């Protein structure tokens, strides 16, 4: 009899442990914690391999180099969660730098030029939103189209040439520091905080998750699905324009093709961060960690003198690994 009781007690304990670990894995932040652990392991590996890696200067330079990518990924996260997608964001960044440089070259005040670039970015976002919502077109197709148009226009406007853009106040945005922290990094962090706050605490944040989680049900409940997505397309366009301004300020020049090639990194960061491409699921902190991981990977491999050709291979491998692991995690809950 007593033996029997003991067995069931042991069984019970095993069950609760299994259940607890399942609950832990199922927690909404489990994915973010997994990324954090992965980031720490990565940092530890690079620290042992390179003495230069774990210095304040190097860490800050990672952040500052990734800032414009992080900015676009931060804005892209809620958009994808809400069921949208913006492939044109990096192209918007490209044309934004070109617009600033050309306006400035034509005697317009530098800050007014920046304002014009932001308005154009917002306008392109609104255009993307109007095409996807108004005509019910697939966002992949729409933004692939606008991406191509905008990239082409940047080249047409500049003849493919880099436009110099050197003016002190403006370049401070790219290379200035506040208490030792680079301005681009600070801008990115502020944007992340702002988007996190909106997503986590405001009714609009709820509409983001609801719109992507089940657009049909959301419409039946009177949730403004189209308006939610429209606003997020505009925000994505704005983020592209701001990223373009930051890159132009960092380089002291606007190259029409300077940002476009980073589009895949932006999308990769969002997906790596645990956001579902089908909408409804994801968090902006996951995206931030993913941006850090991708930046660290790049930086570490460069420090270790690995050819930049291999860096793309690594990036892709990490992305597939992370998404695979996340899928296993989600499946383990069922």
């Amino acid at each position, binding site marked *: 009899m007593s033996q029997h009781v003991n067995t069931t007690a042991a069984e019970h304990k095993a069950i609760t442990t299994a*259940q607890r670990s399942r609950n832990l894995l199922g927690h909404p932040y489990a994915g973010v914690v997994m990324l954090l652990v992965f980031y720490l392991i990565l940092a530890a590996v690079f620290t042992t391999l390179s003495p230069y890696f774990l210095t304040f200067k190097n860490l800050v330079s990672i952040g500052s180099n990734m800032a414009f990518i992080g900015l676009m990924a931060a804005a892209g996260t809620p958009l994808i969660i809400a069921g949208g997608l913006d492939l044109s964001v990096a192209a918007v960044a490209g044309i934004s730098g070109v617009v600033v440089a050309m306006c400035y070259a034509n005697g317009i005040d530098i800050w007014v030029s920046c304002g014009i670039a932001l308005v154009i970015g917002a306008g392109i976002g609104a255009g993307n939103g109007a095409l996807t919502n108004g005509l019910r077109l697939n966002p992949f197709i729409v933004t692939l189209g606008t991406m191509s148009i905008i990239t082409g226009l940047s080249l047409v406007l500049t003849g493919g040439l880099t436009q110099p853009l050197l003016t002190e106040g403006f370049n401070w945005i790219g290379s200035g520091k506040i208490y030792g922290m680079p301005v681009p990094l600070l801008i990115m962090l502020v944007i992340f905080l702002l988007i996190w706050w909106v997503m986590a605490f405001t009714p609009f*944040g709820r509409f983001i998750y609801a719109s992507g989680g*089940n657009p049909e049900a959301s419409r*039946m409940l*009177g949730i403004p699905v189209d308006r939610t997505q429209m606003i997020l397309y505009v925000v994505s366009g704005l983020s592209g324009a701001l990223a373009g301004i930051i890159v132009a300020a960092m380089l002291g020049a606007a190259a029409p093709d300077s940002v476009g090639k980073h589009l895949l990194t932006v999308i990769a960061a969002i997906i790596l961060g645990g956001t579902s491409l089908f909408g409804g699921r994801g968090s902006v902190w996951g995206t931030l960690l993913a941006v850090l991981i991708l930046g660290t990977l790049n930086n570490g491999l460069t420090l270790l003198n690995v050819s930049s050709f291999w860096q793309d291979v690594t990036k892709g491998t990490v992305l597939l690994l992370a998404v695979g692991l996340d899928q296993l995690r989600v499946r383990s809950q069922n």
Partner: protein
Amino acid sequence: MADKRLLDMSGVRKSFGGVPVLVDVGFHLDAGEVVALLGANGAGKSTLMKILSGNYTRDAGAIAIDGSPVEIRSPADALALGIRMLPQELSIFPDMTVAENIMIGAMPRKGLHVDAAAMEARATQLLKRLGLDWLSPRTRMGTLSHHVQRIVEIARAMNGNARVLIMDEPTASLAAEEVQLLFDIIRRLQAEGISIIYISHYLKEVFAISGRVVVLRDGRNAGDFATARTDVDEVLHAIVGNRVGDLYPAFSASSGAGDDVVTVEGLTVEGWLRGVDFTVRRGTITGVHGLIGSGAEMIGRSLFGAVPRTKIASATVGGKPYTITTPGRAVEAGLGLVAAERKREGIIAMLTLRENLSIANMPLFTRGMTVDREKEATTAAEWIRRLSIRARGPEQPIGTLSGGNQQKVCLARWLLGDLSVLILEEPTRGVDVGARQEIYRQIRQLADQGLGILLISSDAEEVAGLADRSIVLAGGVVTETYEQPTDASALMSAASKPAVAA
């Protein structure tokens, strides 16, 4: 008798994460037998069937076919043994032909090519077996009506050496005469010696088609009756244990007398409704009954602004003129709608119970610019208690609740706001008997509190049991109006009346 025994499952046990779902369950089946498997949601029906079809593996117990023990470790094992499952939701390829849809799992080949002639011949043969001689195997699947697609799925299941066919809620969205067609097919298969396991919440169907009724409750066997020697009360009792009273609450003395809170004139939806007039009264349940395709299914959602190309002559809500625009405006006017397709149009599966409850009423839960989560959580806890929703708590993702409990949340979310009219579409579709009773009681209580309720249902018994007054639709027009409760047979005969040409 013993030589007819086709399937014998005994002592089947299964737990998920330490929670027992099946405890020593036994189930047997003779060749050519139609057995109804009944039980409330969560009773273990689907788990047992998923074990039989190889989607789950059992923890303990034995399965024997033709008297010899078998192991079913994967769906492929089950298929090889002749066990076929017809899924609850359609799984068709609308752009392929009927023949391709039937043969998709076992395309006959000639070298590297699909042998189209053999495929069509085989498909034709299978369709013939089901009495569908008129259907060409070259028809594109997407052009067929829903119930014919269903039957093509049965043909697919019959391909090969099928011996047991599991049907999970096969009539969920079929109209009465389509159900008859399905029953004809079941009888044909039965005559061929194929055994059918029929899972349904509709007791009337169960009594019409099955030879035996097996009931599970809380993961255990709770009854095994020869259909001819039992009745609805006995079966219901086995399903819900000793929890049953009457399924429908009593009519209120005061209801039916309230003033009009909605008036609609000339509601028209291209291809569905032709100038329908109706009213909804305060404190009253107004029923709308009609078969699938009668237009009844469009009445609520078109009024709600969810159907394109809706026209209306005039309408008022709460005494004020109302124009149909978007669901958002309908909500502002004081309308709420619980949609028929719960998974697709009702719940946001990834969000929690708490978030699903508040989402249509965000202004109520907003303080300054942010969401008041504490208020959300206490409200959710309160409604879990009031509607006896079976959930771990407000933070459980709603997708993991049973259908009946999801429906209670869908109902509750409209009761938070300043609602004057609640439109309910098929409020108990796919909901088990226990939860149905609870939902009916809540609907009555809401009416008693002064809400105007528009109850739209293709289940005549539901309308008869609940509505204080009702209208019946057929062919897009109102064919009958009742100003007092009526019985199901009257509703059914009005619903099958041919529509008068407008």
